[in-house]
């Protein structure tokens, strides 16, 4: 006899929860990057989705044209995307810090459209596939679902990177500088810390996280120029729910919303596409600073 939860076979529930966990891993790593950038630069990086797409393309192109394998790509692509972020900060964003936040938002949004357009022109929208590395071929039968090894790896890799980042920010000296720069950059400079350099490197790191997520996603989803814009809207909702700039909040909220979305697919599939936004609206009404955010 099949075990049921609220009339739903437990297999289906667990299966969707696992899929939710995989999606949640992507939400977590992307919203973490956004949260770090927003915390220090006060800029909502609308290019984040395009940078995620760039990561996937960097991995795909280095494999296809240069024969660079997955593991090297997993390191190389975030470095390339991070370097692109550093150039973007130095050449463009830096000129906008003294202006209203809106200008940074418009610039990053415009850049996202430009990047998407360029790749659309070069590769079309039909999608390219990235072969799963040999070591991750196959999977394991968990009883309630078949879990491909690669998807298990995605969960492990992204959670490891998320919690390592959290640890560095909350528990180390380097992180203390970052927290201090977020709260009072002027005073930190008066102590002799090169805050402009910190801002550049932090932006680079946040962007590299998006690139890393892009490489992880390449073998699962189609590599397409629009892969980022489809995902990033949900991620922005995650950031709003978690609270702008909250590090742990962005990780926890990312995973939790992935799971909630998965459950919604079981109990009320019609709502699965909007559940995140309904939660966002409720959070904005009841706790505008977000679940983990501090009221200003």
């Amino acid at each position, binding site marked *: 006899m099949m075990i049921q939860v609220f009339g739903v076979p437990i297999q289906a529930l667990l299966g969707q929860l696992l899929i939710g966990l995989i999606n949640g891993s992507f939400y977590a790593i992307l919203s973490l990057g956004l949260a770090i950038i927003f915390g220090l630069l006060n800029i909502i990086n609308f290019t984040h989705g395009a940078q995620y797409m760039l990561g996937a393309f960097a991995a795909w192109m280095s494999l296809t044209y240069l024969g660079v394998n997955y593991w090297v790509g997993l390191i190389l692509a975030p470095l390339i995307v991070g370097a692109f972020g550093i150039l973007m900060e130095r050449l463009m964003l830096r000129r906008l810090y003294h202006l209203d936040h809106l200008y940074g938002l418009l610039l990053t949004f415009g850049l996202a459209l430009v990047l998407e357009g360029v790749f659309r022109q070069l590769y079309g929208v039909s999608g390219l596939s990235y072969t799963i590395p040999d070591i991750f071929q196959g999977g394991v039968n968990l009883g309630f679902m078949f879990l491909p090894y690669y998807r298990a790896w995605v969960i492990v890799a992204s959670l490891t990177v998320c919690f390592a980042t959290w640890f560095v920010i909350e528990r180390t*000296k380097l992180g*203390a*500088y970052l*927290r*201090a720069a*977020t*709260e*009072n950059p*002027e*005073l*930190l*400079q*008066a*102590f*002799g*810390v*090169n*805050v*402009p350099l910190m801002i550049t490197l932090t932006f680079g790191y946040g962007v590299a996280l998006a690139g890393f997520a892009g490489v992880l996603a390449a073998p699962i989803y189609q590599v397409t120029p629009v892969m980022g814009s489809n995902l990033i809207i949900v991620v922005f909702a995650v950031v709003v729910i978690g609270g702008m700039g909250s590090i742990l909040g962005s990780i926890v909220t990312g995973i939790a919303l992935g799971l909630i979305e998965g459950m919604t697919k079981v109990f009320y599939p019609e709502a699965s596409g909007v559940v995140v936004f309904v939660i966002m609206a409720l959070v904005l009404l009841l706790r505008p600073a977000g679940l983990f955010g501090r009221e200003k």
Partner: protein
Amino acid sequence: MHEVGKELLRVVDLHAYYGESHVLHGIDFNVGEGELVTLLGRNGSGRTSTLKSIIGLIPKRSGSVIINGHEAINLPPYKIAPLGIGYCPEERGIFPGLTTEENLLLPPVLHSGGMTLEEIYAMFPNLKERRAAQGTRLSGGEQQMLALARILRTGARLLLLDEVTEGLAPVIVETMGRVISMLKERGYTIVLVEQNFHFAKGLADRHYVLEHGRIVKMILNNELEANLDELHELLGV
């Protein structure tokens, strides 16, 4: 300029602006090594702005600020502290996202010869007791001690202290006084912005009186009594 031994700070014709508003109108003063000099004046006379301009926190400034023989007027803020200067802001500037000990360890060590963490904890036992607490959970007095203590680690020999007694209970003011005179004995050079005239009198070598963004008078501490009437008029006390 006053005759001093080795000059650690020399400020010449310092002007500073907040946007359109011109707040310093040509400040001139100097501080010799080991001296304790106060900046006195009414609210808005430009004392805090003088300290902020020296450390680079008011970006729009002109004139000359020579720290330890190095011109600092055109340096970005993060390059000024490494000339050997420590800054304790009026609002204390304790970082809420950091614990007490993280706040204490935050300013990078600039030169050798700063105090060790043990020495600092020996001087401020309260901070040791509360080292794991969030920095802004400390009492006002403890936060003031923390703001002062954290620049003693860095090896800076010139300290800019802004209103370190403001809003503190008399017993804490006494403690701050003991600490500052001990720092002076240790050879630190100190520029003290102070509202509490009696506090300053017990510690300083010289006083500069500011009015409307200018220095209007320099008084040696031992000539203070003779100038008391004029000083009271300038300070409006």
